[in-house]
Structures are given as C-alpha cells and as structure tokens.
C-alpha cells in the first residue's frame, strides 16, 4: 500500500510539475495565478497521500495551511488586478 501511495503521489507531482512548467511560460498573469492555484490543490493532494503513507497525522495540518494560504495569495492577486493604479503605465 505504501509503495502504491508514493506512486500516486509521484504521478500527481509529475502532472502538476508538467503543467507548471508550461503555464509559467505563458505571459499572461492570470495563467500564472492559475498555476499557483493548481500547485496549491496538487500540493494538498500530495501532502494528504504522504500523510497516510508515512502515518504522520500532522502532515494533514500542513495541507490545511496550504489550502488556507493558496486562497489568500489569489485574493491578493485579484486585489492588485482591479486596483485603479494598474490601469496606469504597464511595462
């Protein structure tokens, strides 16, 4: 069971990694925040699987933190995107 869990965790890691590499090469900002969101969800999945595989309960707490803060960063992004200063000079 443990090997299988690690296998699934690696698979999800590869999936998330593949998309991250491609997304981060797109110029649009929204694509990049979506990449961060994807990593947040993928990271939570990986951490939960690892928690079960290594039988370490506290890893679920780390997943909880990741979930809370991924949303937080996205809110900061949306705040910046809709602030009037952003309609000014954009490099």
């Amino acid at each position, binding site marked *: 069971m443990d090997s*299988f869990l690690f296998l699934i965790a690696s698979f999800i890691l590869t999936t998330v990694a593949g998309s991250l590499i491609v997304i981060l090469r797109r110029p649009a900002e929204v694509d990049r925040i*979506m990449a961060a969101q994807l990593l947040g969800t*993928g990271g939570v999945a990986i951490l*939960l*699987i690892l928690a079960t595989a290594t039988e370490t309960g506290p890893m679920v*707490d780390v997943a*909880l933190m990741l*979930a809370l803060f991924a*949303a937080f960063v996205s809110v900061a992004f*949306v705040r910046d995107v809709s602030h009037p200063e952003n309609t000014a000079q954009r490099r």
Partner: protein
Amino acid sequence: MAFARDLFTVLALVAGALFFLAGTVGLIRFPDQLTRLHALTKVDNLGLGLVILGLLPQADGWFGAFKLVSVWLLVQFSGAVVTQLIAGALRERGPCA
C-alpha cells in the same frame, strides 16, 4: 475486509490522479483563460475529492477522517470563490496580457 478497503483506496486514488491529469491537460490545451479556469477548478477539486475519498478508509480514526473531510471542504470552498473572483477580474479587464 482489509482487501476491500485497500481495493477501494486504490481505485479512488487512481481515479483522482487521472482527474488531476485531465485537469492539467485542460489547463494547458484549452483555448482561452476562462475555459482554462473552469478546467482548473472543476477537475482539480474533483481529483482532490476522489483522492480524499480514497484516503478516508485508511484514515487515523474519526478525528483523522474529520480532518481530511474538512481539508476537502475548505479547498472546495476557497477554490470555488477564488475562481469566481478571478473570472470577475477577467471579465472587467478583458483577457489581460
């Protein structure tokens, strides 16, 4: 009993991982930002949901299972609302550079 439990875990985790793959492929290949956003939330939350469903039988007692479910609910909720926020920002500003 243990075999049935393990089988359930294996099936659910494989399904969850496949959904992650599908969501990622959608994120890469869909033509515009709104459709990609849609792929991101729908499929990844479903992927995470299946993963957690698969991990529930292996969980550490009732409190462990409760924590797993609350993580899932939290990710679902914040993911859904954040997607709405991003989509709203996109609609306001048009597809941004």
